[in-house]
């Protein structure tokens, strides 16, 4: 019955163990082993046996308490109860370590690497958009430079033509 807590189960199992250990008929055994003493002092035998049972059960129970104390077993078992309770809906067998640490670590690290990938994706996209704007600006700038160059060229040609005519004028003026 899974509703019993592990701590309770442990105590119950130990109690059952203790009861069965000194179950009825062990007194008969006791008297059978200490037969002469039993004949000599039956009352004492009974009380020695009762003390034996009481002492054994007490010291074993104290031992269990010590072990619980030592390993903080109650808290650990209660937390295990909680984990089992939370996971009980999970039907099929759960994951277990494969024995290959590199393999098992993948799932542990994946979320962080997925996050890094998403961050990088965002940054690349942002940079690409920024570069697209810059590229547009560069193309526009190239067009402007071209226009300016054409303007300068046109003016340059005009003035050069002018210069040629100027020369012609001089030649005309100098003519004898």
């Amino acid at each position, binding site marked *: 019955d899974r509703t019993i807590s592990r701590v309770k189960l442990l105590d119950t199992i130990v109690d059952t163990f203790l009861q069965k250990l000194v179950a009825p008929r062990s007194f008969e055994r006791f008297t059978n082993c200490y037969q002469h003493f039993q004949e000599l002092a039956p009352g004492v035998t009974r009380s020695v046996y009762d003390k034996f049972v009481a002492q054994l059960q007490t010291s074993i129970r104290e031992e269990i308490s010590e072990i619980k104390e030592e390993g903080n077993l109650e808290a650990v078992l209660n937390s295990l109860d909680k984990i089992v309770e939370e996971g009980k809906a999970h039907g099929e067998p759960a994951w277990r*370590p494969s024995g290959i*640490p590199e393999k*098992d*670590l993948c799932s*542990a*690290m994946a979320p*962080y*690497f997925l*996050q*890094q990938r998403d*961050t990088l994706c965002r940054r690349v996209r942002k940079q690409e958009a920024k570069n697209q704007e810059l590229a547009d600006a560069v193309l526009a700038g190239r067009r402007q430079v071209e226009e300016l160059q054409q303007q300068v060229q046109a003016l340059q040609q005009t003035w050069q033509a002018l210069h040629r005519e100027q020369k012609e004028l001089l030649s005309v003026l100098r003519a004898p």
Partner: protein
Amino acid sequence: FDELIVDVATKRRQYPRRILESVIKTLKAQHE
């Protein structure tokens, strides 16, 4: 054998967290 089991089990419990700490540190450093 028992010590080996406990040793491996303890590593399985602790190391992923410690490795993750340094992985996160590394990723942060790369990010910066």
